[in-house]
Each structure stands twice: as structure tokens, then as C-alpha cells.
């Protein structure tokens, strides 16, 4: 080693620092491999759109516009009243948000502002466990507990065991941890100085948390609610189990009635005996893709809006 150091000094150039050509080639190949892994996600998005579009367009050419305005959604009979599905989706997600907004935001404020660090460390994982309950399990719970013990207890035994309301409450419970987690992140990110300033002015704890921290985190809280709505709209299994109506549904605005949402219209088309690739009404199978496209567009819009709000919080603090 010592001999090398003594050997005639050589002027270093940029080429010497770049390393061997082989090493650089390998480096490039690896970079391209990682880039293609990341690029695969773009491919997935493109494939979703391609898969949906072809048959959705086919559906629109097959049906008469009057069929889309029918008073119910019975694809095998050629009734494609999309308003039935939109109303069902609206009812389920509205009920879900009526449950998830107070529960999720209350839990978020408590965890971020009131809970001691130790309580927070135990309560948060439990809340995350609730988020991990599979939707089929929540569907079973909605049908066998929420429906008889809550809906029928409140509105009488005569109400159907399958109802949009029971499904909506189940979806709301599933969405609560998501709302709580995103809102809590936003409130936790509010700088301490704001809280200290409020206390310095003599504000009480509840004034500080509800009228200083909450408004300061409002972008993140709005994002949490939008994400909750988007998740509620996309939830399938809870509604498929608890809202009944596997064959189709009549238009209804009554939450105590059985019904279908966009997602369950898709799942019941898929599980029917003659469904996928079947030989029923010609437009029934393509209608799956049309509903999927509407659902995809709707959730994409909501998620884009939520991301915009989340970014606003991040920029500010």
C-alpha cells in the first residue's frame, strides 16, 4: 500500500471519479428496473380505464336512453334505472357519514388533545384493529346485530331485516377509524406554539382544542371527511350482505327499505348464476362496466379533492 502512495502522482480527472464503465452500466440497469416498477402503477391506472371504457361504451350503445330512466335496477329484465343505484349509494354513504363524522372527529380530538401519551399508545392500535376488520365480518355484524338490535328495535319488527340503514351504519363504523386517523394526523401536526399562545391568553382547554386547534387543522379534517365519503361509496361487502336486494331493486329513498348501491349492483351481477359472460339480457353484463366507470370517476374526483386539502395542511406547517 505504501508503495502505491509513493508512486508518481497522477492528476485526477472527472473520468477517474466516475468509476468503471461496467459499474456504471450496472447502476443504470438497476435504476431502470426501479423506474419500471414505479411505472407499473401508471400501467395499472391505464388498464383500469381501458378495462372499464370498452364495455361501458358498448353498454351505452345497447340500451335505449329510456331504459336508463327506469324506476328500478333490474339488469336481467333490461331495467337500468341508474337513479336507483345513485339514491342507494347516497343513502348508505350519508348514513355512514352521520355515524363516522361525530365518532371519528371526536376520537381524533380526544386522541390528539386530551389523551396522555400512554393512553394514546394503547388506544390508537385498538382503533387501527377496528380499521382492520374485514368488510364481510362487518356485513355479518350489520345483518345480525345492527339490524335486529338497533333498526328493528327502533322502528318495529315489521321493518325488513335487510335495510340500507343497517348497511349504512355498518359502513360508518368501518369508515370511522379512517376519518379519525387522518383528522388526528392533521390536528397533531398543528404546532405547539398555537396551543401555547391560546393558553397564554387564558383560554381553557376546550376553547383551545375546539376553537384554535380544530380550525387550524380544518383542511386535514375536511380531507378526512372526503376520504371517508369516498371509502363509504366504494364499500361493497357490508352493503351486499346487509341491504339485501341481490337481484335488483326498485327506486327508493326510504333508508329502512332494502336496496342496492353501485357497488352491490356490480357484485350481484358478478355472482348471479348466469352473470359473468352469461346469456341473459344482452346489456346486463356490460352494465357492470358502466356502473364501474361511474363509481371510478366519482371516487377519483373525491380523492383528488381530499389530496388537495391534505397538501394544503402540509404546506402551511
Amino acid at each position, binding site marked *: 500500500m505504501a508503495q502505491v502512495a509513493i508512486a508518481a502522482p497522477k492528476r485526477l480527472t472527472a473520468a477517474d471519479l466516475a468509476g468503471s464503465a461496467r*459499474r456504471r452500466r450496472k447502476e443504470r440497469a438497476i*435504476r431502470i*428496473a*426501479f*423506474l419500471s*416498477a*414505479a411505472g*407499473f*402503477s*401508471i400501467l*395499472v*391506472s391505464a*388498464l*383500469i380505464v381501458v*378495462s372499464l371504457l*370498452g364495455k361501458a361504451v358498448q353498454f351505452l350503445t345497447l340500451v335505449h336512453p329510456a331504459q336508463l330512466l327506469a324506476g328500478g335496477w333490474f339488469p336481467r329484465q333490461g331495467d337500468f334505472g341508474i337513479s336507483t343505484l345513485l339514491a342507494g349509494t347516497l343513502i348508505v354513504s350519508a348514513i355512514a357519514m352521520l355515524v363516522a363524522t361525530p*365518532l371519528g372527529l*371526536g*376520537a381524533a380530538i*380526544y*386522541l390528539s388533545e*386530551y389523551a396522555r401519551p400512554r393512553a394514546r399508545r394503547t*388506544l390508537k*392500535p385498538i*382503533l387501527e384493529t377496528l380499521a*382492520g*376488520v*374485514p*368488510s*364481510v*365480518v362487518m356485513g*355479518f355484524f350489520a*345483518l*345480525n*346485530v345492527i339490524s335486529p338490535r338497533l333498526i328493528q328495535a327502533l322502528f318495529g319488527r315489521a321493518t325488513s331485516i335487510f335495510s340500507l340503514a343497517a348497511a349504512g351504519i355498518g359502513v360508518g*363504523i368501518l369508515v370511522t*377509524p379512517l376519518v*379519525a386517523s387522518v383528522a388526528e394526523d392533521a390536528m397533531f401536526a398543528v404546532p405547539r406554539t398555537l396551543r401555547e399562545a391560546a393558553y397564554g391568553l*387564558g383560554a*381553557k*382547554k*376546550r376553547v383551545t382544542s*375546539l376553537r384554535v386547534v380544530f380550525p387550524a387543522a380544518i383542511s386535514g379534517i375536511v380531507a378526512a371527511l372526503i376520504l371517508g365519503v369516498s371509502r363509504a361509496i*366504494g*364499500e*361493497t*361487502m357490508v352493503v*351486499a350482505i346487509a341491504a339485501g336486494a341481490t337481484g335488483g331493486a326498485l327506486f327508493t329513498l326510504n333508508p329502512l327499505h332494502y336496496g342496492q348501491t353501485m357497488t352491490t349492483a*356490480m*357484485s350481484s351481477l*358478478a355472482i348471479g348464476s348466469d352473470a*359473468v359472460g352469461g346469456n341473459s339480457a344482452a346489456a346486463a353484463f356490460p352494465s357492470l*362496466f358502466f356502473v*364501474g366507470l361511474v*363509481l*371510478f370517476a366519482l*371516487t377519483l374526483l*373525491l380523492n*383528488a379533492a381530499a*389530496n388537495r386539502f391534505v397538501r394544503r395542511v402540509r404546506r402551511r406547517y
Partner: protein
Amino acid sequence: MARRSDLGSGVVAIPGTTATHVVRAALRGKRFRVGDYVVQILLLMTLMIALGVLVVLLGNVAIRGVPVLEQRGTNFLTTTNSTLPFLAGVKQGIIGSLELLVIVLIFAIPLGVGAAVYLEEYAKDTRLNRLLVTNVRNLAGVPSIVYGILGLIIFVEFLKPLTGGLTVISGGLTLAVVVLPIVIITSSEALRAVPNSIREAGFGVGATRWEVIRSHVLPSAAPGIFTGAILTLARAIGETAPLLLVGALLGFFAPGNVGFWGQLRGPYTSLPTLIFSWSTQPNPDFRNLTAAAIIVLMAVLLTVNAAAIVLRNRYERKW
């Protein structure tokens, strides 16, 4: 002197005391403030309702399902499905779920971690890279049933020569695509938590970017990546909706005992699909059977989640 002080609700000046007393008392703040406690209790109640639902859910499932498990014992785990509730078991569901998980593991984890490495280690703040990030976030919000349509058109129909159509391979690939954005997001977070000084130390001794990633960044981020991977698998275990579109069978599928390899190229089901199928049976005996199957599913999920939490607590490094 005012009789009532407006320093705060509940603060009442006692006649005869001076204003300084009142101020001192208010600053010392040892009084019972009703309003604050009411708010705190209300907030705690919302949290407790959410957690209480979890308790009621688990309790209800246990009350219905435990007797079935006691009566049937391991027989419930080793018999196949049947139209007769006292004969039906979850064997096919367990095998199907395992096969799906292996496929998800093979495809989603390497792809997801690779994408995260690119986004965190290579990507500069260019338009293309911002598009990639936004795209991943949007994919995470796409309803899972929409991925079922992608699976149906791409894996079942377009790639039929490779996947064999409505097989467990198509199902596994579809689930892999469903969880891919979650793998990317959790791995990105793990990579982001590795401080720059670790990377700079590697570059300082002349390592290339890949050498730094392989020898420094990935080992440091490994616990976080593993935790994310485990949580991803937990998500994949419970996913049902997309599988309905790519052939996971419902109801009472014919093949009795086709085994692990036979199922790879034939009809398949998964544990949550079986639960869905049983929960829609009109026969009330199936309700308790469903609860028993839910216990099996929840036991697997809670074990997996606990493993993730232990892993996180044990290996999580604070920089």
C-alpha cells in the same frame, strides 16, 4: 366591585373578597371546571363507542361461533364445504386464501418496494415523478371492486393463456394489484424515515447509489418495510369484493377435494368468500357456522396484526 367575575364560567367572586383574590384563584386553576370536563367526557365517549362496537362485534361472533368450534373441533378446519351446515367446513377457504397470499407476496411486495425505492431514492422533483406519486395515491383510493373489473378483463380474459382464466392465479394477481399502492405507500414511509446522513456516509466512501441503497438504506428501512408488508397481507386476507369478479366461487361448488395443486388450475374460493356465501344462506344454522368461520379469519388477522406491532416495537429505530 363586580359580584360575578367573567374570568371564566364557574368562577364566582365571593362577596367581600378583592379582585386580586379572584385573579389569583383563576390563575391557579384548581377549580372543577364543569364545561371542560363535559367536553372531555363527550370526546372520550365517542372513542369508547367506536371501541365498544369492536368489543360487541367480537363478543357476538364468539357467542355464536365458539359452540360450533367446540362441537366440531378441528373437523371444522379439515372438511370441505357442504350444503348441510353440520358437515360444512372451511378447508377449501383456508387453502384458497393461502394460495392467494403466496401470489400476492410474490408479485406485490417486490414491485411495491421497488417502486418505493425509485420514488424515494432516485426520483427528482420532476413532473413525471410528481405524476407517479399522485397516481399511487389515487390508486389507493380506487374501490376494490373496480380492481375486480381490471382482473376480469386483463387477467381472466386477456392473459387467459397464462392464467388459465377463472383460476386462483387470476385471483391472486388481482389482489396483488389491489394492495400494490398500500405496499408502495408504507415502504416509502419506511425509506423516508432513514436519515440522509446514512446515505451520505455511503456516498462519502465512494459507493454508487445502488450500493448505498443495498448496504445502507434497505437494511435500515427493513423493519418498517416488513411491518408494512405484513399489514398489506392482512388487508389481502380480508378482501372479498374483487375476488367475486374474478372467479372465487360462491355457494356450493362441486369439487370436493382437489388439493393444493389441483386448486391452482381450477375453481377456488377464499375464507372471506366462504363467509360471504354462508352469511347469505337462509338456513339459520348457517349463521353460527358463519360466526365460527369469522373466528378463524379474525384469529388469523389478529395474529398477523400482533406480529406487525411486535416487529415494529422491537426493531423500530429512532434516529
